[in-house]
């Protein structure tokens, strides 16, 4: 029982990481009707940036927010330079563009930082906390706390502020929004910036668990896809719930199903994607696609 509880808590921690990246995917899905296949690579590059800053002697708690600001600006720049020229192109073109972007970002990171895995510092002590016989590591708690704050922050921004309202309107109803004076194109760029920053959180949180190298996010993005699909791909709240569900499921499967630990855990992620698409294509919180004819 104690071990079970411990597995659930680390599942929640890793789930927070999936949730952040899944939320980034959903933010962009809503803005352009397509997931950004480069989301994980962008998060990886941001993590390297944080790594470089910390290596230069900057304190973790200054480097972290600074990286998020830089990731935000980078996301806007990518939208303006790479995505905007093709935003009216067919979906397949956009798929290829974001796939190309993923390869490009991966290559840039490898070129600058090399492919040798590096250990990334965690600001949380390695000790564990004993709560009624359940040992919970400070690292897990820290990850849960940071992702919780970030996810709450995004929620408040989108739901409670005027800029969040105009971002949602621009993503779902671009034509109607223009007629209300919303600068739709800039709102979509802001969406990219926000997604990029939220994704960067997942990279920085996962790097101490894995090791930092250019391919670090390639398994994480699969879990994030699973989380986003499970949540209904359009729903930010669904993506967050999906992230935690996937995190806990993957962790428990690794611990209790013989043979699933290690590399086969990724198969659990795929199994979730396939199961959702077959059994409940609209996900937990998605809406059935209806069109008035």
């Amino acid at each position: 029982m104690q071990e079970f509880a411990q597995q659930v808590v680390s599942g929640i921690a890793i789930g927070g990481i999936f949730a952040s990246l899944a939320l980034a995917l959903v933010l962009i899905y809503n803005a352009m009707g397509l997931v950004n296949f480069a989301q994980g690579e962008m998060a990886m590059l941001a993590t390297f940036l944080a790594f470089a800053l910390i290596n230069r002697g900057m304190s973790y708690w200054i480097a972290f927010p600074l990286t998020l600001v830089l990731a935000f600006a980078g996301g806007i720049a990518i939208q303006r330079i790479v995505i905007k020229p093709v935003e009216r192109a067919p979906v397949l073109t956009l798929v290829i563009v974001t796939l190309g972007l993923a390869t490009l970002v991966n290559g840039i990171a490898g070129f600058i930082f090399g492919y040798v895995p590096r250990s990334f510092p965690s600001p949380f002590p390695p000790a564990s906390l004993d709560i009624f016989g359940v040992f919970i590591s400070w690292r897990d708690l820290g990850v849960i706390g940071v992702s919780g704050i970030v996810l709450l922050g995004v929620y408040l921004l989108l739901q409670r502020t005027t800029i969040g309202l105009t971002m949602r309107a621009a993503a779902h109803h671009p034509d109607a929004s223009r007629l209300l004076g919303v600068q739709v194109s800039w709102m979509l760029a802001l969406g990219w910036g926000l997604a990029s920053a939220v994704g960067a959180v997942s990279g920085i949180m996962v790097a101490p668990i894995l090791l930092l190298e250019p391919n670090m996010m390639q398994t994480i993005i699969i879990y994030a896809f699973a989380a986003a699909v499970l949540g209904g791909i359009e729903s930010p709240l669904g993506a967050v719930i999906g992230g935690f569900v996937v995190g806990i499921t993957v962790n428990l499967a690794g611990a209790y199903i013989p043979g699933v630990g290690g590399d086969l855990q990724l198969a659990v992620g795929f199994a979730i994607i396939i199961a959702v698409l077959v059994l409940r294509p609209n996900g937990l919180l998605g809406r059935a696609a209806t069109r008035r004819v």
Partner: protein
Amino acid sequence: MRDVRAGYGQRAVLHGVSLEVPEGGIVSILGANGAGKTTTLRAITSGVRWTGDILFGGRSLQRMSTEEVVRLGVAHVPEGRGICTELTVDENLRLGAHLRRDGAEVKKDYDRVFEYFPVLKERRRLSASALSGGEQQMLALARALLMRPKLMLLDEPSLGLAPLVVRSIFNIIRNINETSRVAVLLVEQNARIALDLSTSAYVLEVGRVAVHGDSSELRGEESVRRSYLGY
């Protein structure tokens, strides 16, 4: 609007339309399907490419984006009403007022809007997709009013609504025009009700102005009524 030509791709829809909306006036555009009524409105808010010239308060709208025209004080309620169905009623209203910085005045306008449309106040928290057609039209008008525009462009506000609802909505449009001196350019299939509301009218026929004059005169002229307005 002077000699405006517009179209979609290769297909020209407007072949030189000129019209004028006086400050604080109500003007209607009538005509059959495909005459270019909607395109005329879309040209003003840059929803379609056009040539010629469109002036708004003395300023040329040439090469302006939709957002820029709207920010000058043009509220366009498009065909299909342009309701953001993913958002709540209240969020739709807030979008109408989102550019304004005069908080106290916005609050007054909210009160006025809820006075015109009490049903929207009741349903503030609901998703806009839960509203009936008439209520959505009210929401679109309310939102346009909250933009505090100088000119409202209304594209077939009567479409798909029951006659009683149409009458009450047109009464409110008249009321809005009288109390806040908003000019209205109204596109309508329902010529009779449009002519009752407006002071002058233009009848479009395949992208050209076929007839124009005072609404009361057009209403009285048997020949115009028979050949263009069909009642």
